[in-house]
């Protein structure tokens, strides 16, 4: 069961990496003569309103989704860990300031703010990534802060400090390797949330730029032609559902591997 989810996740990543070889058509190629065609031998999942091949767009959609997820997780984890470590190891005044910042950002309705931002500056990849990083960084920051706080009074850390190493060196050489595992598990748990946010915003037409292949955008068109072109809705929602579940259950498995005391969920 668990191995299956991990394999599925690997499959999605391979699909994204080898998208040009898997796709049967150019995902941007328009064909006005073949609009909203049902699935056939030439178009495995039919065509959309502009006659583009849905299967190819779905395959390329994994690139959009995983790019946003990977870039979003890396950026938020880096920023969050830096902020959390600064709060735990920095001068005394940093901690309450960082906490106000973290809790403030966490207590905002992200989706609604994202809508206001898109209304003002328009949809696009940069806007999307900013929204993702803004929504995920506080989670990483709070988690990293707690983790570093546990370790900062450990004997080996105190010994390093006594030798005369500064907080930055001690953090990079001794604390970071120790918290990397739990951070990785958190990243696997945060990735599906980011995938869902991207797909959701694109479904509302507020995510990726118009025309880019995205699962959310395919689902959005499918929703408009629910009765006429049902293949669109499946091509847009099934991959999102599968990849979010695959990320979540793989993260759960990873967490159990790293910490056997963790409660078994499945």
């Amino acid at each position: 069961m668990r191995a299956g989810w991990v394999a599925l996740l690997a499959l999605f990543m391979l699909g994204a990496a080898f998208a040009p070889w898997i796709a049967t058509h150019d995902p941007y190629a328009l064909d006005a003569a073949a609009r909203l065609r049902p699935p056939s031998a030439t178009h495995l999942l039919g065509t959309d309103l502009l006659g583009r091949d849905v299967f190819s767009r779905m395959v390329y959609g994994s690139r959009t989704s995983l790019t946003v997820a990977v870039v979003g997780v890396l950026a938020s984890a880096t920023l969050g860990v830096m902020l959390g470590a600064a709060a735990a190891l920095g001068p005394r005044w940093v901690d309450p300031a960082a906490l106000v910042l973290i809790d403030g950002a966490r207590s905002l309705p992200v989706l609604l703010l994202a809508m206001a931002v898109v209304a003002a500056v328009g949809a696009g990849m940069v806007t999307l990534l900013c929204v993702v990083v803004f929504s995920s960084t506080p989670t990483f920051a709070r988690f990293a802060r707690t983790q570093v706080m546990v370790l900062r009074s450990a004997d080996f850390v105190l010994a390093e400090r006594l030798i005369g190493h500064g907080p930055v060196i001690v953090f990079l050489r001794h604390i970071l390797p120790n918290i990397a595992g739990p951070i990785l598990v958190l990243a696997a748990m945060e990735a599906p949330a980011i995938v869902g946010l991207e797909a959701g915003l694109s479904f509302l037409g507020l995510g990726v730029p118009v025309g880019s292949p995205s699962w959310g955008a395919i689902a959005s068109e499918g929703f408009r032609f629910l009765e006429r072109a049902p293949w669109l809705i499946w091509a847009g929602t099934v991959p999102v559902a599968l990849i979010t579940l695959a990320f979540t259950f793989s993260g759960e498995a990873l967490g159990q591997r790293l910490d056997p005391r963790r409660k078994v969920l499945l």
Partner: protein
Amino acid sequence: MLRVVGLRLALSVGIVLLVVFVLFVLSRMLSGDPATMALGPRATQEMREAFAVEMGLDRSVPVQFVAYVRGLLSGDLGADFLSGRPVLVMIGETLPHTIILAVASISWAVALGVLVGVQAALHPGDWIDRVTALTSVALIALPPFVIGIYILILGAIVLDWFPASGLGEGPVDYLHHLVLPSITVGSAWVGYIARIVRAALVEELGSPYVRTATAFGLSRRRIAMRQCLRIAILPVITLIAGGIGFLLSSSVFAEVIFSRPGMGTMIYDAVLTRNYAVAQGGVLAATIMFVALTLAADLTISALDPRTRLQGFR
């Protein structure tokens, strides 16, 4: 307690001010010159200048910000540039539908979640226990719009039991229209609540007073429902308090998918038509509501359980 309330209140006011500031900055970043947008491209230079003076655009940005906040405090959220209606009136019309949706969703989710949680706690390892473990994780991982679409397809097309869109006329029809959206919003919570109730109950069922009550001949189910649930309900309130943002965002998707008038659809339509005043006013109103709800929930928990009271900002 007073100190706790004070600190918490200060943080909430700070958050709202921050959002007001962000929205103000965003309104200055709108693409295009406001005078051209309002007066059209054929306006003369004098008309533009008169418009700028009228709207306060000739003053410095900090002065404009103060004027904007003044307007907000007197309830002036601007107007819809298409219909000319005040945003505050539009919020007054749509907000009740969103609140009804949120309350209905969370109510059925708590009711079912608690029942399932009690069942799972009384029979650990049972099929119901394992199914809730799986569905709680799965339904939270799935994005709300995917859940909404599948529920619409199942409930309104395949089974054709419930209407797919609108509000309905009259109370019975209104409830009939409420079913699918509230299933969409509530479904992610059921498993979560069940898991939390189960965890708290299992702990509670091992305590001495339960043993005593069992010795007096009360059934374990009765003890669980009558005595233990009072304690097990606390983490559920904490969970809901922490999830108000999630509740709000899944309501947006439910409203859009089921074409249900509400705050979510109002803001969404405004964003699509680039009706910035409506989007801005809606987001601000939603934020204030959200912050106030979180504050109320936090204070309720502090009042019910002194162990969770804030120490400073911790």
